[in-house]
């Protein structure tokens, strides 16, 4: 259980457009030796996972992390190393394709071999991963294998196949109302390496990259990311949010220097307020994180929240941390209440060895109510109806 560590990132004043508030995060200096590029797929993708399962989803892009440290010097990115950069997919012409291409992705995270004609002998220092899919897969695969003990309440399917197939729905950023305009008119700060997206003043997503140039390139990719149901609703129904305007009291201001001090204090005040109020729940929550990939001194991890119910914001996500645990890359996905409930139910069930009566007691509810809840959460096919009905009749 760890917290997110956003050391090195300072909050700059937010920019508001309609119901969307974008809070820029600025790094004094970029993270050394790590760069991030995008690969555009823009279409459906079939992703083969390590455990033999395969799933189909809209995969707009993949990120390529490069920890070779060769591109950190400014101006070197256009040199001979440019050949190693991920290329953007392009499509010219107005012809509509007859078929829909399905990209096949082998694994969520995959080490990249250097391409032909490049320095082949060098150690590979690049890997490709599918942003947000990584995090969502972490959530979907939560106790995916099914009950570890074959209690008689569990159906045969649950014991054999686990929770397959499980699915969650998300909205494309383009469908989140106002987000496209907000991103278009956003003025990127010098040195900006991240952004926090608030819809209706509730945190929707956080995005952090290691280098300002990467951010500039990836800023529009926020539009193709996945956003939870809640974010979509907030953006759709939320009214325009107010801007937090600077207020300077004219009292006791006698010189221009005094006025300047007040102005600087305003900026500091906003930065503190933001951390304490708007992003509090993201930053103070403890997360269960799992290492997915090791890249030199950096680690790619994904994390899950404790699935605490009761209205608190819960984010899942993925991040790259350096050896001190500082965040170099971060992308989060806001869970909706239903998703939190499902996660909670599964965690409690797992914690009580998949026994329904024990779980009911832990949730301080009745056996019948727990069965109803599982049905509402979409897990009804996993229970053996007859056994459950008999149990309920017995307990009555």
């Amino acid at each position: 259980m760890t917290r997110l560590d956003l050391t090195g990132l300072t909050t700059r004043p937010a920019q508001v457009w309609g119901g969307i508030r974008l809070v820029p995060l600025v790094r004094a200096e970029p993270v050394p030796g790590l760069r991030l590029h995008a690969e555009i797929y823009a279409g459906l993708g079939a992703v083969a996972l390590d455990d033999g399962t395969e799933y189909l989803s809209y995969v707009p892009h993949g990120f390529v992390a490069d920890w070779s440290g060769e591109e950190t010097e400014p101006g070197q990115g256009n040199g001979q190393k440019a050949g190693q950069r991920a290329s953007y997919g392009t499509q010219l012409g107005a012809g509509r394709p007859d078929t829909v291409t399905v990209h096949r992705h082998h694994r969520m995270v995959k080490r990249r071999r250097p391409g032909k004609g490049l320095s082949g002998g060098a150690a590979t220092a690049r890997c490709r991963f599918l942003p947000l899919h990584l995090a969502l897969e972490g959530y979907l695969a939560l106790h995916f294998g099914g009950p570890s003990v074959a209690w008689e309440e569990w159906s045969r399917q649950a014991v054999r196949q686990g929770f397959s197939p499980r699915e969650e729905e998300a909205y494309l950023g383009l469908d989140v109302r106002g987000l496209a305009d907000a991103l278009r008119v956003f003025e990127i700060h010098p040195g900006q390496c991240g952004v926090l997206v608030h819809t209706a003043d509730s945190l929707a997503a956080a995005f952090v990259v290691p280098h300002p140039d990467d951010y500039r390139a990836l800023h529009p990719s926020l539009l193709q990311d996945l956003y939870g149901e809640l974010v979509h609703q907030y953006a759709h129904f939320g009214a325009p949010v107010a801007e937090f305007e600077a207020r300077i009291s004219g009292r006791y201001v006698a010189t221009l220097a005094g006025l300047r001090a007040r102005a600087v204090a305003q900026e500091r005040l906003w930065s503190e307020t933001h951390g304490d109020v708007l992003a509090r729940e993201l930053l103070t929550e403890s997360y269960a994180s799992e290492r997915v990939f090791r890249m030199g001194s950096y680690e790619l991890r994904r994390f899950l929240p404790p699935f605490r119910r009761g209205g608190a914001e819960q984010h899942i996500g993925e991040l790259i941390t350096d050896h001190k645990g500082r965040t170099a890359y971060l992308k989060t996905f806001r869970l909706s209440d239903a998703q939190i409930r499902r996660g909670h139910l599964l965690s409690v069930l797992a914690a009580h060895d998949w026994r329904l009566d024990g779980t009911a007691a832990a949730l301080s509810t009745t056996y019948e109510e727990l069965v109803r809840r599982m049905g509402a959460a979409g897990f009804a096919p996993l229970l053996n109806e007859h056994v459950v009905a008999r149990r309920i009749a017995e307990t009555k």
Partner: protein
Amino acid sequence: MAETFADLIAAEDVLLFVNAAVTATGQREFRSDAHAQRLSLDFLHAYVCVNYRPLYAATLALDINDHNAARIIETLLRGAGEASAEEKRVEGRLIARRLAVLPPQRVYRLFRALRAARVNNRRTRAILRDWLAARPDLGHDAVKYRRGLKTAARHAHLPLGASKEGVPAEIGDFLFAPGRRTKYRHPLLDAHRRAHYEQGALYELPFTVAEGFAGRHGVGREALVERIAPRMTRLERLRTQESTGVRTERTEQRTDLTVMPVTRLALYVLSLPLDERVRRRAELTKALRAAARRTAGPYRGTWGRVAAVLDDSYSSSGSGEKRRRPLGTALACHFLLGSLAAPGAYTAWWTSGTADPLLVRPWGPTPLGTRILDALEHAPERLVIVSDGWDNAPPGLAGEVLRVWRTRLDREGRTSVVHLNPVYDTDGFDVRRLAPSVPTAGIRDAEDLPALVEIAQFAEGRTGIAELREYLDRRVALFVEDDSFCYFPGEPVGVPDGSARDGRR
């Protein structure tokens, strides 16, 4: 006479309309689309025309942009029935004068719009006839604005076909019966006829017309541009020089940058890539300085210590339709203010913090408040802020700084602050303001800067309608100098006596 509340509102409305008419062009802006701009502008025109018709007409005498000038003329002609005979006469003078200043393609477009709106009263026809009669060469118009002239002639029943002199008769035939004559006496008309089969005739035609024929004759664009260069307008030459890459010794020589208007020149400079700007630094700086000096004219060096805060944030990139317009205006203002200020007493602060005005690019946020503080530290006599009014790092700081400065630190008004805004805000029906205490004026071309600063002073206090009328009166008198009977509309009706008119002169 005591000012009533209605008078104050009237003055406010008119100033608001002037700001809109200077900045808005019905095109896409950085933060609003073309439709929103047009909708907002439509409302303003209808509102001001219905409520303050004389003032509405008088704005034609101000430095409003061509789009709005044409809109005003169209609106005035459409609602002719609502004006009294006296008002109509003045409107007619103003319209005639304005049409003479407008570029011909705009005027032809206006005539087309009038035709589409089925406005064809006697006054409209007379205006149209007079304007066409004043054109220096109708044959040129017949070739270059063929459809426009044809529509206008047909709409106003102009007897182009049957005139005594011969040339108009030719034009009538040229437009309406192109097969009738085998030869024209007017060289351009004849060139147009020959250009259908003779390649050499191409180079006697105006560039836009020749472009069409070039495709038919299979003449390459570069070859065409090379040979037709002497017949191009200055802007066409600049444009093609960029697009075709023709940069021969001769073209360079011919496009004399120093004679261009300063805003146009600034936009041209911004369209160049950074390394080219560095390479041609001396030439560009010299041209910009010269243009600014020429524009400043009699005001040169009269403004004392001047500080400017100029916005080169990302939003100053404008839109696809108004590319880098706000930044271009800011850059032109920079050079213009440099010549307006006393020698060596001008300092500029760009929001991005750059010190090299020639290499500005639209980039980064808008920390306007901090820059204003920097500028105020130099204790200038005038502070000019050129910005679209979106202050976002942090939001609202500029307004607060200016308010505290005015109420606490500079109560006696040593520094006069003015905010010039190149972007029309559709929701507010005005340009966006930084603070209520700071006079704000819309700006499109930096050339109008001295006049706009004058207008902005009206918006500072609670100016009444009387002063505004007086100001408009003066502008109208300057604008329509050829007619001594034209006086500011809306004064007590009655024949103005000569002395009053002389006094106004």
